[in-house]
C-alpha cells in the first residue's frame, strides 16, 4: 500500500504518524514544497520574539523522527494530480503512484486589492521565509502597520510589540478579532491594546500604500490618516490551496469538500486541515476552519480511513485561544448564540474580565471568555459531550464562572463509593 500525503504541516504529519501506527507495512510519503523540515506556523510568532530558534518550530525532530517511523519526506512542488492514473507529478518531472492520496496543502494568505501591496516593504506572515523578512525590517523603534486584527493578526501583534516597534493596526471590522470574539470581548481587546500604546483603527481599511524616502512607505487609511512605515504586514485572512485538484472533477467549494471520513468525492483521495471543508460540529454544515486542533483531528481521521479502519467523526468544533500582550481570550462553537437560545454573561470591563455562555435547552453550545486561563478546555468538553446540564444550567445562568464545577458534577460520580 502506497500512501502519498501532499503537505507537510500538522495535518500531514499527524496523518503520516497515524498511518504508520495503523499499518506498519505501508509505504508513506510526505511531499512538501517548503525548504525547511515539517514545521508549525503556529510557532512563528514565538520565533519572531526569539522565544525559540527556527528549529523550535519544527513539528518533530527532523534528524530522527521520520527515519525512525519510516516516513519518506520529499521536498518538491507537486505540479499535477491525476486521479484516474492515481499518480502525482512533481516539479522535477518525476511522477509517483499512490493507492491512497491525502491533500493537506493548507492555505495561504489572501491579498486584498490594495494598491502598493506588492512593494518590498509589504509582507505577509505565514511562512518561515516571511518571518525572516519581518525580523529583518521590524527593528526596535521602527514604524510598522499591521493590516488585519483577526486571529493571525493578533498573534503577530503581540510578537511585534515585543520586538519594540511602533505599531498601528488597521481592522475593517468594528472590533478586534470580529470572527472570534463578540462586541464586548473584542472591545476589551481593543482597549487593552490602546492602553499598551498601540494605535488601533477599527472600522477602517487601507486605501493605498506608496513608496516614500529612506526605504519607507506611506500608508493611507480610509479614516483619512496617513501613516509612515518601514514595514507593512498584511494579515487579512487565508484561503485554501485547492488548485491541485482543479480539473480532477473532485468537488471543491470554499475548500475541498470531505465527508465524515475526510474522504473527497473521489474514494481514494482524502483531504485534511486548512484545505478541507469538513463538517462543523456545531452547525452540521461544511466549513473551512483553518485551526490547528482541527488540522490534527482531520489528519488522524483521514489516516485511519486511508488505512481501512473505518472511523467517522461528528464534526470538528471551531475554537480559538489568543494571548494579546498578556490578555488571554478564547471562544468555542456557537459563541454568538442561536435564535431561541439563552445566554449567561459576566462582564467586568474595568478588570478586563468577560465570560459568555450560550445555551440551547440545557446544553452548552458556545462560549467565549477574556482574562481566564484556568480550565478553559472544559468549555470544549461541555459542548462536545452535549451533556445535559439539568440543575446546573440555572447555576451557570447565575454564575457563569462555574463551568468546571458543572462539568465535574454532570459527568463524575460524586457520591460515596
Amino acid at each position: 500500500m502506497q500512501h502519498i500525503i501532499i503537505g507537510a504541516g500538522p495535518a500531514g504529519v499527524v496523518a503520516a504518524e497515524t498511518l504508520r501506527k495503523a499499518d506498519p507495512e505501508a509505504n508513506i510519503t510526505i511531499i512538501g514544497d517548503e525548504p525547511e523540515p515539517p514545521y508549525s506556523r503556529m510557532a512563528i510568532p514565538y520565533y519572531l520574539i526569539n522565544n525559540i530558534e527556527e528549529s523550535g518550530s519544527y513539528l518533530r525532530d527532523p534528524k530522527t523522527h521520520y527515519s525512525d517511523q519510516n516516513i519518506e519526506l520529499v521536498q518538491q512542488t507537486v505540479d499535477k494530480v491525476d486521479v484516474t492514473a492515481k499518480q502525482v507529478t512533481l516539479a522535477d518531472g518525476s511522477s509517483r503512484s499512490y493507492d491512497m492520496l491525502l491533500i493537506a496543502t493548507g492555505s495561504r494568505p489572501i491579498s486584498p486589492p490594495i494598491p502598493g501591496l506588492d512593494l518590498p516593504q509589504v509582507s505577509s506572515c505565514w511562512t518561515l521565509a516571511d518571518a525572516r523578512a519581518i525580523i529583518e525590517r521590524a527593528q526596535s523603534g521602527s514604524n510598522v502597520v499591521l493590516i488585519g486584527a483577526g486571529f493571525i493578526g493578533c498573534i503577530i501583534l503581540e510578537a511585534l510589540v515585543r520586538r519594540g516597534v511602533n505599531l498601528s493596526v488597521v481592522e475593517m471590522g468594528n472590533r478586534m478579532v470580529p470572527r472570534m470574539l463578540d462586541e464586548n470581548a473584542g472591545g476589551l481587546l481593543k482597549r487593552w491594546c490602546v492602553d499598551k500604546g498601540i494605535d488601533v483603527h477599527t472600522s477602517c481599511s487601507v486605501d493605498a500604500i506608496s513608496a516614500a524616502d529612506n526605504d519607507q512607505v506611506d500608508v493611507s487609511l480610509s479614516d483619512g490618516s496617513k501613516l509612515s512605515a518601514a514595514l507593512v504586514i498584511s494579515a487579512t485572512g487565508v484561503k485554501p490551496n485547492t488548485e491541485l485538484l482543479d480539473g480532477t472533477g473532485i468537488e471543491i467549494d470554499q475548500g475541498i469538500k470531505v465527508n465524515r471520513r475526510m474522504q473527497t468525492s473521489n474514494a481514494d483521495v482524502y483531504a485534511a486541515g486548512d484545505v478541507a471543508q469538513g463538517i462543523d460540529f456545531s452547525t452540521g454544515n461544511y466549513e473551512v476552519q483553518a485551526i490547528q486542533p482541527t488540522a490534527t483531528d482531520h489528519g488522524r481521521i483521514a489516516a485511519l480511513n486511508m488505512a481501512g479502519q473505518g472511523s467517522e467523526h461528528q464534526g470538528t468544533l471551531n475554537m480559538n485561544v489568543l494571548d494579546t500582550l498578556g490578555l488571554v481570550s478564547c471562544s468555542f462553537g456557537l459563541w454568538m448564540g442561536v435564535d431561541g437560545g439563552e445566554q449567561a454573561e459576566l462582564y467586568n470591563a474595568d478588570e478586563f474580565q468577560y465570560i459568555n455562555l450560550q445555551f440551547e435547552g440545557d446544553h452548552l453550545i458556545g462560549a467565549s471568555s477574556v482574562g481566564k486561563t484556568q480550565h478553559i478546555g472544559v468549555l470544549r468538553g461541555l459542548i462536545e459531550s452535549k451533556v445535559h446540564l439539568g440543575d446546573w444550567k440555572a447555576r451557570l445562568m447565575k454564575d457563569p464562572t462555574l463551568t468546571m464545577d458543572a462539568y465535574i458534577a454532570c459527568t463524575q460520580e460524586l457520591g460515596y463509593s
Partner: protein
Amino acid sequence: MQKSLNIDPGKCTGCLQCEMACSYEHTGTFNPSRSYIKVFTFHYEGRFAPYTCTQCDEAWCQRACPVDAISVDMMTGAKVISDDKCVGCKVCTIACPFGTVNYSQATGKVVKCDLCGGDPQCAAACPTDAITYVDADWTGYDKMMASASKSLPSAEVTA
C-alpha cells in the same frame, strides 16, 4: 504494571493537602492556586471532588501541540510538558476537553499533572485515601467506562 490515580470523591474531606503537596512538588511553594490537582467544592451536595488529568489515551493535548512539547513518560504513561519546547501558545488548553491543562502566567508555559514521575505527591498527602495511586487495572473498568460514556466528547465514533 502501569499505575494510575484513583480518585474517590466520596472520601474527600476538602482538606486541600493534595493541592499543597502538588504545588510544593512543582513550584517549591505551598500555593494551592498553582496546584495541578484541584479540589472542587459542591456546597449544595455537601461534596468535594479532587480532579486532575486522567492521562487519557486520546491525549488531545499532545496531538494539538504545534511544537511537540508534550510527550509520554514511558515509565508512568503520563503526558508530560517539556518546558524547553513549550512556547505558551495555549492550543492544548482549549484542546483538552477535561480542562486539565492550564496556562501558568508565572512561567509563561502550560502545566499539567505529570504523576510526579511515578510518586504522586497528592496521593501521598491524602489522609483519607480519596486519592490513591494503584495498578491501572484496579481503577475500575466499569466505573471508568460509565464515567467516560458520560463525559467523553463525541468527537469520533468508530463505524
